[in-house]
Structures are given as structure tokens and as C-alpha cells.
């Protein structure tokens, strides 16, 4: 068996947590483990990538990888694949990594498994379907390297204390006729703790009916302290809150101590992003809402009365 690679997301702030999760998993499968890190911060991330299991880090700090998302990274990765012939490449299930994996697949002609929740060995991935009610093991065949996109937070990162050898990589860049280029960047900075780090996550859904009721959720979050407000895809799609709020398959994965939903139906899309919460509270006026089936505490009632009353109660108990 050839080596196992992790396509490691990096920024100037360091490696993405997903890269460390995937390296921890790759290590447990066995064999040689390497990471490919492309973009500013890649070389600096090598120490941490090494500590989590990458014996080799193929790195380039070139800005082309952030200025032209997808194509240059896929072509550079393909050149490395041809040279070093890995058996398996693990990617995080983010928009950026999907673009790289999808384009790479066209060049390698190898299989690509998406939405994996576990990697059993070099030829078997696991996924969950129908809202996590069925566990499906999938056998991967065909030419190597097999490509697997893994949902974030599927594994806990654990350092092993190793170190890595950095191999500098020359970017493979196409001409302007085949590449889209970033010309502006806009950040919507949220206040308070991050969704992924808050002890309590409060999610609003279609049942809120508009953008204004999110202020009610903000107040509950403020009363609790270490809490953050998120949303279902329905609320984001409606334009009520920015995409950075989205919890679920194409948004963030959260594992707080307590997750509270208000007016969220519990579409599969959303559930995969929050079912790892320690305790789930769901408030919904519809007694048949699917989210009530996975809730530890389901409340059937009017969120417009319950949420403000809960905020009051939290303030009272916090002060007593």
C-alpha cells in the first residue's frame, strides 16, 4: 500500500483544525502519512502537521492558492500525485477542499467519496444517511489514489509528537482563460464566542419568520454568556442571517454542551451539523417536527413566548 495523504487546509493563523483531525485518523490507519499544504501559512504549519502525524509536508506558501481557489491547487496536487503515487487522500468537507478534490478526480479518474464520517482503512469509508439513522460502509475501488471528503469534527485531533520534513512545492498554474480570480474579500465579523467554540448554541430556523426575531436569540445568548447564535439553512437561504451562521451539512458542525433550536424543523441538512451536541433542546410549535425526535428535551409551543421567558429565567437563576 502507498502512503496516505491529507490535503491540509492552512491559513496565516495556522493549520485548520480539520487537517489535524484527518492526520490523527490517517496515522491510525497505518503506513506512511504525508500532508499537502498549499497557500500562505503552509510552511509555518508544518510543525503542527508533523506533530499530528505527517512525516512529510509538501508545502507552498504561494498566494495563487487563495487568489485562485480550486484549480491551481488541484493541478499542483495532481503533479504531486503523479510523482509520489499515494493510495488515499483525505480532504475536509469544505467548499474549498471539495473544489480541489472534484477537479483532481477528473484528472486521476479515481473514485471520490463525499460526506464520510469515518475512514475504516485504505479502501473503506463510512457515511451516515437519512439523518444519521443508517450507517453505510462503502468499498472504494478503481485506480489510486482514492479520494475521501470527511465531515469536519469526525475525529478528535491528538498530537503524536513527531516532526516533519518540509518538501517545497512549485505551483502549477494555468492561464487566465481557465481560472477565476478573487478581486475583493469581505468579512462579516461576529461578536461573542464562535459557533464552534461556544458552550451553548442557539439556532433559529424558518419558524422565526424573518430577521428581526434573531435579536431575541441574541438576548438569550447574552444572558447565558458563553453562547452563540446560529441558523438552519432555511433561515440563511431566506437572507435573514449571513451564511457564517449556518449549521449543517454545508455549514458549520457544532458540538456544544447544550444546543437549543427555535423554529428549526430538523431537516437532515441541519441535523448532521448539530447531532453531536451533548444535550439537545428543541422548541417547535409543530409536534411532528423531526427535530423533536432527536431532542433530549422537546418543547411543543410558541417560541415567541418561550424564548423571552427563558431569557428572563436564565437571568434570574444566574443572579441567584
Amino acid at each position, binding site marked *: 500500500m502507498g502512503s496516505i495523504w491529507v490535503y491540509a487546509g492552512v491559513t496565516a493563523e495556522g493549520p485548520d483544525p480539520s487537517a489535524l483531525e484527518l492526520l490523527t485518523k490517517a496515522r491510525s490507519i497505518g503506513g506512511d502519512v504525508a500532508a499537502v499544504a498549499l497557500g500562505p501559512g503552509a510552511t509555518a504549519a508544518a510543525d503542527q502537521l508533523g506533530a499530528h502525524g505527517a512525516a512529510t509536508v509538501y508545502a507552498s506558501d504561494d498566494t495563487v492558492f487563495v487568489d485562485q481557489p*480550486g484549480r491551481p491547487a488541484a493541478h499542483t496536487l495532481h503533479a504531486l500525485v503523479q510523482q509520489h503515487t499515494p493510495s488515499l487522500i483525505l480532504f475536509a468537507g469544505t*467548499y474549498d477542499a471539495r473544489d480541489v478534490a472534484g477537479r483532481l478526480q477528473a484528472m486521476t479518474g479515481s473514485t471520490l467519496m463525499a460526506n464520510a464520517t469515518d475512514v475504516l482503512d485504505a479502501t473503506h469509508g463510512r457515511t451516515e444517511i437519512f439523518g444519521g439513522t443508517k450507517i453505510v460502509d462503502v468499498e472504494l475501488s478503481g485506480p489510486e489514489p482514492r479520494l475521501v471528503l470527511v465531515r469536519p469534527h469526525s475525529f478528535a485531533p491528538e498530537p503524536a509528537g513527531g516532526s516533519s520534513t518540509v518538501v517545497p512545492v512549485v505551483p502549477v498554474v494555468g492561464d487566465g482563460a481557465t481560472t477565476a480570480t478573487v478581486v475583493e*474579500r469581505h468579512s462579516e465579523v461576529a461578536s461573542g464566542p464562535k459557533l464552534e467554540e461556544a458552550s451553548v448554541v442557539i439556532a433559529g430556523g424558518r419558524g422565526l419568520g424573518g430577521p428581526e426575531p434573531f435579536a431575541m436569540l441574541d438576548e438569550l445568548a447574552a444572558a447565558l454568556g458563553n453562547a452563540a447564535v446560529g441558523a438552519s439553512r432555511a433561515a440563511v437561504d431566506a437572507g435573514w442571517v449571513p451564511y457564517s451562521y449556518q449549521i449543517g*451539512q*454545508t455549514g458549520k458542525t457544532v458540538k456544544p454542551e447544550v444546543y437549543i433550536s427555535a423554529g428549526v424543523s430538523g431537516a437532515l441538512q441541519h441535523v448532521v451539523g448539530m447531532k453531536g451536541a451533548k444535550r439537545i433542546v428543541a422548541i417547535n410549535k409543530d409536534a411532528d417536527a423531526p427535530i423533536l425526535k432527536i431532542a433530549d428535551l422537546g418543547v411543543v409551543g410558541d417560541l415567541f413566548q418561550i424564548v423571552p421567558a427563558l431569557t428572563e429565567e436564565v437571568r434570574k437563576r444566574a443572579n441567584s
Partner: protein
Amino acid sequence: MNITVLAKFVPNPTGTPQLGADNLLMRDAGDGALDPGDEYGLELALQLVESQGGEVTVVTMGPDAALAGVRRALAMGAHKGVLITDPSLRGADALVTARVLAAAIARHPYDLVIAGAESTDGYTGTVPVTIAELLDIASVTAARKLELDGDGYRVERQTASGYDVLRSPSPTLVTVTAGATEPRYPSLKGIMAAKAKPVESLSAADLGVVDLTSMQSVASVLDAPAKAGGEIVTGDEAVGRIADLLQEAKVI
């Protein structure tokens, strides 16, 4: 301008999905629909040709029943439909799907290809970029806005912290997220007109795609351990019970 919109016919998004005896998703179970996530891209395409002139071609791969999805797209205003339907494509993996769709797109000149960011049934989300690579064209994924910009496109792409603006040459492939625009409902006139619009039916062989081997097979399907049923409360005790739970979790 000529725009090709990729559209998928999916099992009823609000229904209960079923696996067949072969562990493949049952796709021909009567109550399927055009993927709601594809209507946003179709709407953007229709708006572009309404202002710029040109034609929208909708391309679908699926069972015979998927014709209903193509007809809906035509009723919304698309000019032509292509339905790739072939029993040997049942269970096709992402790569086979991408090769088939890329071959269908390449048969006619195009300025823009639009797809949904991911399907509502499979959530794979990689087929469009694989197609872009097979066609050797630029792509922008997760777009929340798409406009003409000189001889190319200006696209706003969602990121974890906000959005980026990208400039992309023509032709380009763009995947759009739901919410990029508000899809129109087919009018009665549109539904009548759709019946007269051309729908081409193609097989994989018509497109010259011969290797249909799927490189993924289901090794096992198990029921996930059932979660113990939670407590359901209503009325006056609700607030107190939630607060109790928050205290048990030590977050108050």
C-alpha cells in the same frame, strides 16, 4: 448568450427516502421533483437571457420519470431540454455522472454553465467542479450572486467568514446556493408552452461515454443505534425544564 443549466430530479425532498434491495436510493418512486436547489440557478439563467438574449438549455440525467423535472424547468422558461436516461446509468457514481454531463454540455456552444451547489438528496457537491475540469473551464462554487462583467462574470462566493468577489472569464461554470435569487413559479402559459418545447433524449452511448463502472459499492448498511426518546413538554413547565437542563449542563 447560451446557458446550460444542470438540474437533478430527486426523490420528494419532504418524503421519507428509501433504499432498494440493491442498497441504491429508489429514484423512480413516483413523487420525485426537480431539485429545489436547482431552481435558483435556473432563475439566474432565465434572468440573464431575458436581459441579454440567448437560450437556456436544461440538462438532466435520471430515470424516465425525470422528464417531469425537465418539463417543470421548461415551464419556468427554459428553451430546450436534454434528458439523459439509460438503465445502465442507475447507481452511477460522481465521476460517471460528471463524464456524462460534461459530454452533454460539450455538444453545443455555451457561455455559462450553472448548477446547484449540491443536490438535496446526495449532498456530494463535487460533480460540477469535476465537469469544469473535464471541460477545462473556470469555475466558481457556492455563489450567492452572479452578474455579467464585460466579457466575463462577477461572482460573489460565500466563505466561512463572509464572501469573496471573483472575476471569471467566459465560459465558466458557477454553482449557486439557495437564496441567490427567488425562483419564479411556472405560469399557466409557461406550462402550456413547455409542452411544445423540444426535449432531446440521449443514452450514455449517444454521448460516447462507455466506461460506466462505478468505483464505489455498498459493503453494508446498518441501522444506527437508536437514540433514547427524549422528553416532550408543553405549556407552562417548558421554561423551567429548559432552565433546569441548562443548570445540569453547568452553563448557567
